């Protein structure tokens, strides 16, 4: 059943076979008696905006945590653009070019907005480590990201003093500061007002156009359908369908999963 769904293919249209970005094979993760990921095999497309949807508790966040190394899968393989990243610690995965946001937005609450971005700079070598943080070019880069998010005027405020929406933007800016090729966003529209949702969508499109791949977990179906090129639907820890939004929208299994049939 699900295997069939997983092979639903790219759907109609004469697109070339997309290059794989993040891919998993047979990913399993159980918490005690509860199986959060049940042999999940899934592939996302490089250069696209991918979406991962599914009802609550279907394993989306666990999937995120597994592929970013925050928790270790019990079994299965994870690859990114062909490279095996299974079992790698989170910072290695981050350095491989995968950045992520968290479900309930996470910033460094007691650091300034600017420092939140500078903390994403990855120095190398002893001299690089001990050099003063906030070299001019880094600061300029950080400021340009903040400007792009529209929060550059807050750079000296502490992050916890920002509003929810501002924190969401700050988190996104921080992720982008680490220059990822693939950006994993966990519910970017969660708790955000519609105007800001539009702004975030716009940003995702722009950044995608600049060459970044996205993988978005989101409950807001309008957003998913309007934004993404490729959608994967999870239910009970495994993909039940995948394909372009138009196909997914009419898939009965997806409706079934959402309606709890």
């Amino acid at each position: 059943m699900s295997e069939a769904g997983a092979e639903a293919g790219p759907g109609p249209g004469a697109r070339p076979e997309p290059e794989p970005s993040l891919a998993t094979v047979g990913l399993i993760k159980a918490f005690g008696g509860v199986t959060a990921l049940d042999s999940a095999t899934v592939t996302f497309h490089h250069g696209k905006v991918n979406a991962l949807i599914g009802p609550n508790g279907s394993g989306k966040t666990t999937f995120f945590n597994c592929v970013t190394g925050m928790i270790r899968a019990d079994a299965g393989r994870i690859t990114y653009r062909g490279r095996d990243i299974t079992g790698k610690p989170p910072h290695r995965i981050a350095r491989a070019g995968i950045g992520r946001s968290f479900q309930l937005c996470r910033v460094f609450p007691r650091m300034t907005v600017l420092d939140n971005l500078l903390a994403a700079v990855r120095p190398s070598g002893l001299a690089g480590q001990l050099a003063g943080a906030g070299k001019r070019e880094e600061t300029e880069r950080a400021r340009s990201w903040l400007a792009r998010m529209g929060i550059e005027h807050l750079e000296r405020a502490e992050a916890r003093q920002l509003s929810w929406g501002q924190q969401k933007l700050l988190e996104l800016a921080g992720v982008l500061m680490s220059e990822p090729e693939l950006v994993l966003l966990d519910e970017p529209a969660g708790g955000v007002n519609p105007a800001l949702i539009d702004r975030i969508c716009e940003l995702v499109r722009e950044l995608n156009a600049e060459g970044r791949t996205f993988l978005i977990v989101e409950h807001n179906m309008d957003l998913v359908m309007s934004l993404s090129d490729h959608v994967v639907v999870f239910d009970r820890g495994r993909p039940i369908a995948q394909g372009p939004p138009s196909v997914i929208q009419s898939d009965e299994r997806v409706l079934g999963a959402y309606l709890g049939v």
Partner: protein
Amino acid sequence: MPSASLVFQSVVLGVLLGGLYALLAAGLTLYFGVMRVVMIAHSAFLILAAYLAWYAHRETGVDPLLTLFVTVPLFFAAGVAMQRLLLTRLRPATLTMMSVLLTFSVALVIEGLLGYVFSGTQRRIRLDYSSAGFEFLGARIAAVKLIAFGMAALALLGLYALMKHSRFGQALRATIQHREAAQLLGIDTDRVAGYGFGLGLATAAVGGTALALDTTIYPSLHWHWIGPLMAIIVVGGLGSVPGAAIAAMTLGMLQSLLQLELSTTWAQTVFYVALFATLAFRPQGFFGGRLAQRF
């Protein structure tokens, strides 16, 4: 080589000691389970209970065991109060670290007050049956040690039955395993955590009375207990009550057996060696919990 009878004697002593460790470690595990709190003051409360038993005995001559009827409810209430009034006020983000310091400060206050009220003199309950003992398969068992073990075993069994077979126990286990999930099931996890804390402190009351039966007590004695107990809960897997009990019995026995060949002091290091080995090779502990992974 130690003789067979001495080895057997040591095994018996190890079991008797392990029982007390197991009860106390179960208490520590409860706090950790419900709140992710390492309760440094646990052993200070243990000594406090021992002092109360000693004091009641000295003043009124009642059997120290009878003080349990007062200390157990008292400590339960104190546990609930401590959780409610102190620990819930800490920021969740830094709860684990700050709660250590807070309970540490509680331990200091208890130690200081005990020293102030009862002075630093070592105390010991003098009972008619203090030096009584009997033969058991060639080993000699002191009556007071057996009573202490019996109390610990009964309390542990009671705790086990409560956790396995009561609705509160189910709520408690659910809270320990996954707090958010328990909340979704409609469990008032704050209240459960409070009661869990109370239960943990009640084990200190029982343990303290058991301790007072057979050993000397003095205000700073709690430092002597907290180290081994913390080692036990890590080895057992943080958050796992059966794990803590098994680890307690194992390590208590090991300590007792090692004393045959090594000095008393070296034998005590077994707890810390086990602790470091566990963290280096198997951080989730040996008998339990997944909880340790993230803590």
